[in-house]
């Protein structure tokens, strides 16, 4: 048992992009967090269950393959229903199908209840800086 802050990490839906996930896992762990990495192809309920079980402070959802819009909808509600409504939800990757203006994408995902939305190609440093601020 450690007293590190815990975060759940995973790639949502039918998405199998694994490389970014492995790198985020490595970087966030190296930054001093305990990462519960669910890997790829993770359904919403698995994120929520893992967060409850481990008492994680944030769920980091990745979606690379273009179905993010469909897959990510409803996660906030699910958290609420499960009694972890205050958990931070981060989402990043290539969230929608096609090259799109990021401002629009951000607005859409903020609207879905995510706390932070990251553009394609975001480097781990950026998210770690945000975690330092959000997860005290």
């Amino acid at each position, binding site marked *: 048992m450690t007293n590190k802050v815990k975060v759940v990490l995973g790639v949502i*839906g039918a*998405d199998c992009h694994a*490389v970014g996930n492995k790198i985020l896992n490595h970087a966030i762990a190296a930054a001093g967090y305990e990462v519960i990495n669910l*890997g790829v*192809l993770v359904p919403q309920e698995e994120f929520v269950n893992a967060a409850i079980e481990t008492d994680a402070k944030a769920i980091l959802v990745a979606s690379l393959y*273009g*179905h993010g819009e469909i897959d990510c909808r409803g996660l906030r509600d699910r958290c609420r229903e499960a009694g972890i409504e205050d958990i931070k939800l981060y989402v990043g990757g290539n969230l929608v199908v096609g*090259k799109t203006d990021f401002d629009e994408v951000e607005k859409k995902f903020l609207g879905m209840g995510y706390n932070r939305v990251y553009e394609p190609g975001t480097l781990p440093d950026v998210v770690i800086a945000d975690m330092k601020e959000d997860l005290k």
Partner: protein
Amino acid sequence: MELKNKKWTHDEFNAIRQEVLNQWPTGKDVNFEEAVKYHENIPAKRHFAKRLVKAKKNGETLTQPRAGVALIDEHINLLNFLKKEGEADLLPTTIDSYTRQNQYESCQKGIDESLKAGRSLLNGFPAVNHGVAGVRRVVESVDAPLQVRHGTPDARLLGEITIAAGYTSYEGGGISYNIPYAKSVSLEKTIFDWQYCDRMVGLYAEHGIEINREPFGPLTGTLVPPSISHAIAIIEGILAAEQGVKNITLGYGQCGNLIQDIAAIRALEQLAEEFMTKHGYGDCVLTTVFHQWMGGFPQDEAKAFGVISWGAATAALAKATKVIVKTPHEALGIPTKEANAMGLRTTKQMINMLKDQAFPLTSELQTEINIIKAETRCILDKVFELGNGDYAVGSVRAFEAGVLDVPFAPSKFSLNKILPARDNNGAVRLFEVGNLPFTPDLVTFHKEKMAERAKAEGRAPSFQMVIDDIYAISKGHLVGRPR
């Protein structure tokens, strides 16, 4: 049924077929006899296998994009655009990710939402949901050879429907569509399910219909050393041939070092010929496919054009039979059809400028060919040994043992013990050879190559090197040097 690399009997195949066709309502429209007749009338210029054979004979390198959208008319439109405006020689139908996971309900949702949104909300074409008749509309509206490209661990129903509908080429394989695309599907299951697909193609062949099959060469697309993907490609070639497949395209994803990449294509051709013949599949026609850089791309379109062009140039100099083309939108999202056509035209220009130029067989190239062949042989021989002379069984055991191992693979059935990194010239080597059954010489070779780079960079070989290399091309370099 026990997994073996042995041609299924008709009974074995038919025992499963009905179950497959019942997986989704559209399955019932598959009629094999009618499909054979349908194929008999497909003209040569729309026939994938025939077009490849002709290209091989003429020393051409054909261009092929990736493309697929949710709705039929939109998809037809897209393919015709890529043929006309992209001058593509071969056309794909990229299947969406829900279909790949056999989640046909989600596909339906995607189709419905796409209809509503007026744009595709799926990342590909949900062929199973569209059914034989729907897919045939595509086949009949596009005047070019067509291939199904996907990433589906269980692709039996998808295969039944698309081939019955008139597709003449089918990508995938029991290893290459599992390890990079799945997390917890066992290799026994996917190899078995892909034997089904190969047997189906074999059945068509028995009826005089030649369907091209293409194992997915690039795997995770990220720093995969040639010997790893070659070993898997050749195993999948053998598994397919055993089930009666007669026309196979083996693939390789660009690593970025010219000599290594040309050596890889040559080694692949030579080894595949050799192993296929050795195991009694000498009647199988082999061609090659070179994938333009499959890892992370630069977001800037101008830089992406540089990466695309380098892939095109290498494909042409390596004289691969076809090249799979990336687009300037690669880093950001599924390309618009215009961006896709641009990638194709850039590639075409490059190939046409290079087609009359041969890359000389230098000693550096020969050395690299020798290394790749030696490594691949180590792996293949060990797989064969582990399977007691059976590549199907051997593959399962080899992955367990780490004798086969794919870098960065999401599958829990890949040991993930090896770590690739670039050497000082940008060739992909192994920083950590894991359990690969390499000879001590080969292990030393990799160590020395890594040491050479480490020295040039004034740092010890480390995982940071691997990370730097993963980002390097997207940040405008080949080798991820420290800043």
